[in-house]
């Protein structure tokens, strides 16, 4: 059997992968670099959520920026309100936009616990409502992708438009790092890095367990043929909504972490390019593998940071061209190369078998 499909080997790979990531702060003393690596972890979480929803659920989601951005704005509002007190109850930008009292939208974020809860609950709830509306109407495939894209662009224009509440295109820049009780999370510290990593590990393990569960199997069956699963008596739209909502929740967590690390949020988080690049990470890394997607995010983002400076003008050209090649020739992404390489090794040692090509037993993407 192909080592790639052995569950034990997969868990071992996760263990090694995350152990290496956890050891990074011991070797890196440059706190700015560490902060940057932690934001890659956030991007990894986003790629994970895309992989869950697209790779396993077959729901191509071009609007993952919505839960991410909503979570990020919620967190930014919470952090901003931590810097306000009774003598100075309003963020400075509101005064510039001639508001004379704190808008009701902002009031709940004065309490840190409520604020963080809202940052997670609101995007999740949005995904649940939007998803159930769409999936119950049996909008699926490319149409759903287009609708998420349209929804994303609607949120983008809305956030830009309500400038007195969101500071429009400038975004929100909380002046101080997040305080949880008396504990300050300094974004430029190993502690913050480990916090993000712990959340990424938790999300990955939860996602992996989910895909191994009965629920995950039904979701994957829906990806392969929704009609058949419907005829078998499953509530397809319920499963689709659930996986879409879980992915949205992960993205909201990622949004919170992102603001925690960068202390900044702007409508750019709702930009279509950003949401599409999440899809590119998962696509290049390998959408049908959780770790492949995370690695895809790491590779593309670090390449963008380091090569992007050298090839400032041609970077998008290279990325676009590379993505076309991956879609055309490697539908399973770069991790698919590993799969076929391991498959070749095991095929060499295990001649004969039961006569069914192992390739047909495992799902092929894009069909």
């Amino acid at each position: 059997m192909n080592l790639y499909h052995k569950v034990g080997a997969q868990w071992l790979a996760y263990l090694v992968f995350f152990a290496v990531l956890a050891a990074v702060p011991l070797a890196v003393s440059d706190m700015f670099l560490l902060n940057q690596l932690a934001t890659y972890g956030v991007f990894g979480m986003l790629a994970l959520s895309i992989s869950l929803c697209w790779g396993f659920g077959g729901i191509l989601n071009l609007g993952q920026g919505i839960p991410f951005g909503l979570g990020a704005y919620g967190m930014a509002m919470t952090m901003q309100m931590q810097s306000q007190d009774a003598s100075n109850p309003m963020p400075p930008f509101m005064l510039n936009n001639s508001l004379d009292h704190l808008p009701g939208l902002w009031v709940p974020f004065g309490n840190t616990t409520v604020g963080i809860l809202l940052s997670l609950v609101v995007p999740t709830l949005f995904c649940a409502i939007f998803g159930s509306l769409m999936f119950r109407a049996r909008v699926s495939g490319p149409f759903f992708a287009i609708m998420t894209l349209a929804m994303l662009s609607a949120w983008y224009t809305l956030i830009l438009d309500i400038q007195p509440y969101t500071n429009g295109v400038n975004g929100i820049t909380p002046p101080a790092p997040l305080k949880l009780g008396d504990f300050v999370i300094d974004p430029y510290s190993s502690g913050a890095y480990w916090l993000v990593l712990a959340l990424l590990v938790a999300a990955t393990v939860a996602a992996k367990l989910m895909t191994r569960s009965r629920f995950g199997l039904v979701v994957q069956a829906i990806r392969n043929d929704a009609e058949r699963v419907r005829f078998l008596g499953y509530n397809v739209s319920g499963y689709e909504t659930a996986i879409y909502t879980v992915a949205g929740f992960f993205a909201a967590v990622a949004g919170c972490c992102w603001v925690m690390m960068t202390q900044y949020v702007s409508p750019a988080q709702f930009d279509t390019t950003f949401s599409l690049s999440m899809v590119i990470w998962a696509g290049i890394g390998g959408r049908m593998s959780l770790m492949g997607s995370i690695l895809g995010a790491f590779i593309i983002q670090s390449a963008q940071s380091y090569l992007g400076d050298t090839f400032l003008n041609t970077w998008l050209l290279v990325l676009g061209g590379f993505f076309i090649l991956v879609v055309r020739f490697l539908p399973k992404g770069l991790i698919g190369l590993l799969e076929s390489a391991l498959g070749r090794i095991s095929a060499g040692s295990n001649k004969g078998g039961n006569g069914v090509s192992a390739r047909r037993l495992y799902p092929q993407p894009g069909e």
Partner: protein
Amino acid sequence: MAIGSFFTTFEWSAFINALILGISIASIWLIAALGLTIIYGAAGVINMAHGEFIMLGAYSSYMLQNFLGLPFVLCVPASFLIVAAVGLVLERGLIRYLYKRPLDTLLATFGVSLVLMQGVRLIFGSDPKYIAVPPIFTSNIQFGFVNISVFRLVVLLVTMAIVAALWALFYRTRFGVQVRAVMQDKEMAASFGVNSDRIYMLTFALGAGLAGLAGSLFGVLNIVLPTMGTAYVVQAFLVVVVGGGTLAGSVAAGGATGELQSIFAYFTNDTFARFVLFVLIVVFLRIRPQGLFTPAAKRR
């Protein structure tokens, strides 16, 4: 906003102007969506590079005008031909391998859109370009209190002419019969001797060409930029989704969404109107997920 202020600011003349502007917006969205409708309707390909085809059309007009001195009226059909050729190359080189994987066509064409956008930016730079038009196009017409620019009228007329031409092409020619046969059932059409591969190729080129034509007009309405396509592509997609992928559906959907946008914008503002419109479309799809008019196609 309060209801009181709403009634005091309501003026019939301004409202009628908004309605007429709505027709103009509808014609712009429709002409942007026509190419997309054809490509989606015939081949089931979601062409994310459509916005960049529009942008290429604008740049072709700009180039022809500045380097060859072609008059604007000739630039429009020339853009059609140039972008249709680009579409043909793209279809032969990439899209035809992906017809069985509709979601992957979406991704691959997104890659194409990145390449085209950045390629144009490398060649022409990020600074805006302008397309010159004959002076008569830049004036405004005044009928009583109704005021509309001549060029918007031109766009409306061109859109109407193209819709009529497409209708004639699809319902009055042999090629049109073949396209509709392939749309309904590819294998069945093939067994009757229709070369579906060739039909896909030609419809893709036609759709791309229409985007180029739209682009050469949009280049006059707005400035020409490498990123100009993205402004139109979401609207164009919505028109296709609401319309259900047919020509008649797109015309109806373009008209309805453009008019609603203008009416909402009259009561609130442009961006909020767009948000309301998108939410309405989501609700609409809950009720009619297949769009306004859907072809009798088999399940893809």
